[in-house]
């Protein structure tokens, strides 16, 4: 039984072109699904739809987002928000803009627990201390009293990971959580996310453009092109033999330092033309209804 099940989700710009084209995917409890694709393919859009934070300029035109069996799109906005807030969390891309620069770190983790989930302040603060220690920050008490600008990028991302896990969510959407980081810091953060996810048994929807990262963290993979899922495979199968020509080309374009001959092959025009034709055929089918 999947904790998150997205069925035929279509999203478009209001009165504009489609952004997601009947996207379906499942994330089982405790499982990590990677979402990859190039800029504009719609990978972040899926995460936003799940969390109910789509920008006002877009609308959902069809489909279901089943969270633990309940379709979020059939609930009132208030009920849907409550359900998402109680069971889901986000690890955002840019740890600096995600933290309020004028507040100390501690309250930024605990306020949600106290104000929204009704914890006592003492319980929330104890939880924050434990989590900050769990994300391997050396001096939790000092860090909780710090302001975001006093911490490095890696430290800030650790804080956001701690904050995401604070209320023991069932599902976390991680939206390019290491893209803004250095590779040596990225390695630490990926290990941390994978370790915490496994320990807490959290389902993870992991948005990234880096196939190496997918291999390290994910078990399942959806490859997107122009808002359409072109491949949905277990990660091991994908790397052994990608099924769709576009995802194969994406893999061939990924640089690999261990093999200077491999990688960095541009996606051939023929592959792009073919996948565009698939998208166009889909749109014609959708227009006929």
């Amino acid at each position, binding site marked *: 039984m999947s904790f998150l099940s997205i069925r035929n989700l279509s999203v478009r710009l209001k009165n504009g072109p489609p952004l997601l084209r009947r996207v379906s995917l499942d994330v089982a409890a405790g499982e990590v699904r990677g979402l990859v694709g*190039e800029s504009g393919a719609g990978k972040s859009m899926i995460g936003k739809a799940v969390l109910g934070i789509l920008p006002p300029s877009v609308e959902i035109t069809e489909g279901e987002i089943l969270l633990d069996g309940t379709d979020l799109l059939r609930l009132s906005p208030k009920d849907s928000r409550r359900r998402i807030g109680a069971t889901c969390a986000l690890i955002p891309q840019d740890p600096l803009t995600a933290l309020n620069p004028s507040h100390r770190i501690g309250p930024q983790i605990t306020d949600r627990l106290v104000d929204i989930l009704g914890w006592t302040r003492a319980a929330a603060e104890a939880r924050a201390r434990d989590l900050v220690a769990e994300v391997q920050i050396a001096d939790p008490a000092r860090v909780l009293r710090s302001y975001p600008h006093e911490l490095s990028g890696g430290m800030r991302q650790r804080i956001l990971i701690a904050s995401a896990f604070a209320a023991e969510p069932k599902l976390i959407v991680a939206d390019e959580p290491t893209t803004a980081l250095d590779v040596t810091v990225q*390695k630490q953060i990926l290990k941390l996310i994978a370790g915490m996810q496994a320990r807490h048994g959290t389902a993870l929807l992991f948005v990234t453009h880096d196939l*190496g990262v997918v291999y390290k963290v994910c078990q399942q993979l959806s490859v997107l092109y122009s808002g359409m899922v072109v491949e949905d495979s277990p990660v091991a199968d994908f790397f052994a033999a990608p099924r769709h020509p576009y995802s194969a080309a*994406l893999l061939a*374009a990924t*640089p*690999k*330092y261990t093999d200077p001959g491999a990688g960095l092959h541009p996606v051939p025009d023929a592959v792009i033309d073919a996948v565009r034709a698939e998208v166009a055929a889909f749109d014609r089918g959708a227009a006929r209804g």
Partner: protein
Amino acid sequence: MADLYTVTNLRLSLADMTAKPLFGAAPGIEILKGLSFTIPKGTVVGIVGGSGSGKSTLGRALVRLLEPSDGAIRFDGTDITHLSESALRPMRRRFQMIFQDPMSALNPRHRVSTIISEPLRLHALDAIPDRTARALDHVGLPQHFATRYPHELSGGQRQRVGIARAIALEPDFILADEIVSGLDVSSQAQVLNLLEKLVADLGLTLAFISHDLSVIRRLCQRTIVLYHGGIVEDRPTADLFADPQAAYTRDLLDAIPLPDPAQVWT
């Protein structure tokens, strides 16, 4: 082979604004701590390091957007370490730069043709339309792109315009600072292939700053690894990958996530 750049004991300090008192000057903080190396003509040198290692500062010193505080930079026999802006101007044509984010490096209100030809006008060159057309040709953009605006182009096409602007001046040296890190892998591959071809066709010398060792391996004959403003390794790229000497280089290599079961992160 003759050296295009000879850098000796280069030091560079910048004002540390985080430590600036309310009144009075900010204290200096040393970013580059005595670097010495050479760049032979016609080679592609990679400069890698983590954030804050000083790689962009080093690049900016090479093209004299920053003035070193100590040491010397010689460009093709001329000491450019402390040259004045007016003395530098005629030389600037010979060392050009391609920037990381083409969207902010290209004037959004100018057409591609103006963007490429502006530096040609500043250097008072002749046959500007010919040179502009040739530059577009070199980067594989059709001539009708000349009338487009940056927002009408894809990320990869914008970066091609950035490259066209740099090569239009027929420079000896180009500094490319993280020019593919904002691109998708498919455009990344195209831009790198293009750069490789231009280096060969035009006999360019290139310094390629990147945090991505996979990209460096593909493009560069030699690699300089920076760590906290110092050089920890400066060797032919093939040797560096086969047998990294510095502990930091090994960390950097191991941290690249590979789709390879042989790589185990401990």
